[in-house]
């Protein structure tokens, strides 16, 4: 993958109040999401090019609609 300027990178974040630690996101996107000892996601905020599709999928699959992808 070619190097791309950082400015356009998407940001992934979680609304921790909405999150219930179901863990689907970490299964879909293990490259960016790890679970802590209680099953709640720890997220690498910046989404590199090439993973945007997976990130969108994780957002779509979250049963709590707690994930957010933004510029």
């Amino acid at each position, binding site marked *: 993958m070619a190097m791309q300027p950082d400015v356009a990178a998407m940001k992934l974040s979680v609304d*921790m*109040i909405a999150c219930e*630690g179901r863990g689907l996101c970490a299964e879909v996107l293990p490259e960016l999401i790890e679970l802590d000892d*209680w099953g709640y996601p720890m997220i690498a905020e910046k989404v590199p090019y090439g993973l945007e599709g997976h990130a969108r999928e994780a957002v779509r699959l979250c049963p709590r609609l707690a994930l957010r992808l933004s510029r």
Partner: protein
Amino acid sequence: MTSATHVGVAAEAGLLPRLLPAYGAGPVCLADHLQRYGPPPAPGRADRAELIGEVELAGLAGRGGAGFPTARKLATVAARRNAVVIGNGTEGEPVSAKDKVLMAQSPHLVLDGAAAAAGLVGAPEAIVVAHPAVADLLAAASRERRRARIDKVRLSVVPAADAFVGGEASAVVHWLEHRNPRPTSTPRRLSERGLHGRPTLVQNVETLAHLALITRYGAAWFRGVGTPTEPGSMLVTLAGAVRHPGVYEVGIGLPVGAVLELAGGPSGSLGGLLVGGYFGAWVDPALAANRPLSGEGLAGLGASPGAGLLGALPAEVCGLAEAARIARYLASESAGQCGPCVFGLDAIAGQLERLAWGRGPDLRALRRWIGQVGHGRGACKHPDGAVAMVASALRTFGGEIELHATGWCSGVPGRTSALSPPARRR
């Protein structure tokens, strides 16, 4: 600044205290207040930008703990219409007293500041959310002003929720809107959409008091005490093992040892110093004594002045046990909304308790959890502050950890201190 027509006693730049009564106890009545400081500023549309520039020159930073530049918050909200100002006098932290003392002794200075902030951002209204212990007193002062018709903006006082996390800015807004003192999700920016959807400026009450004086006397006056990078004075709660615990006003940058001397110095040998508050850091008193009480001065110790607490732990109280009690308290004061805070703080407090009372702690798990909990993951910074305090305890009480591993403890069993949290309410 030239707009200050009245130069009261307080206008001499190097003189302290600036915020608290110079002698006697408050509450200072309106007449005495005006006598001391001169008429309150009432910034209007015309001088708004100039005065916000003055606040920026003054270098005033928030005194609620986070230390955010006040001018930047003012400018953000001033750029929007239909704003509202909230003075945050919640002070939910049990050991901290500086905001309560300020509101009780100099209520009109806080209200001046709330009115000034409203003028600066073009808000018709300012609400001061005050700790229940001083809310009546502050409300009486606000009535006194209404009778004297000295404010252009509407001032009101609302008693705060009696909860630790209730002081977080979004929690204060949530409390005013729904009587629910719990933080809300992070994407909501209060300066854009705060109280009832209005652009909202939330400022700590001490910050407002400084603002009231900057708008009167100007930036150069404000910078007459403090350090070039952290100008002004600050209120400090001196708690624990000092001869005269209480609230004192100091120029930022006074060495920690000299600050403790204001309270008569330590009342015995000290085992640790809690700097900043329950969200602060434990440091070695000997290392801290010569450091300036400022962000820069304490950074090397992993501490910061925070909300202005200096808590002296007597040597006969085990630092690990005290840290464990505070960690347990902070875990119990979680608003219960975010998983890592609910489960993480409970687990961390549990391991710290094992460490303190020698029941086979798992230090590796404790360190892993310190790495996992906090770090901006929650809706508010409650877990971040709690974890930072625990991490500092592990750093500062390293010798005690080794001692406990051999079955010993340097403290007197069961002994608590004035820094210990109150018994659980729920």
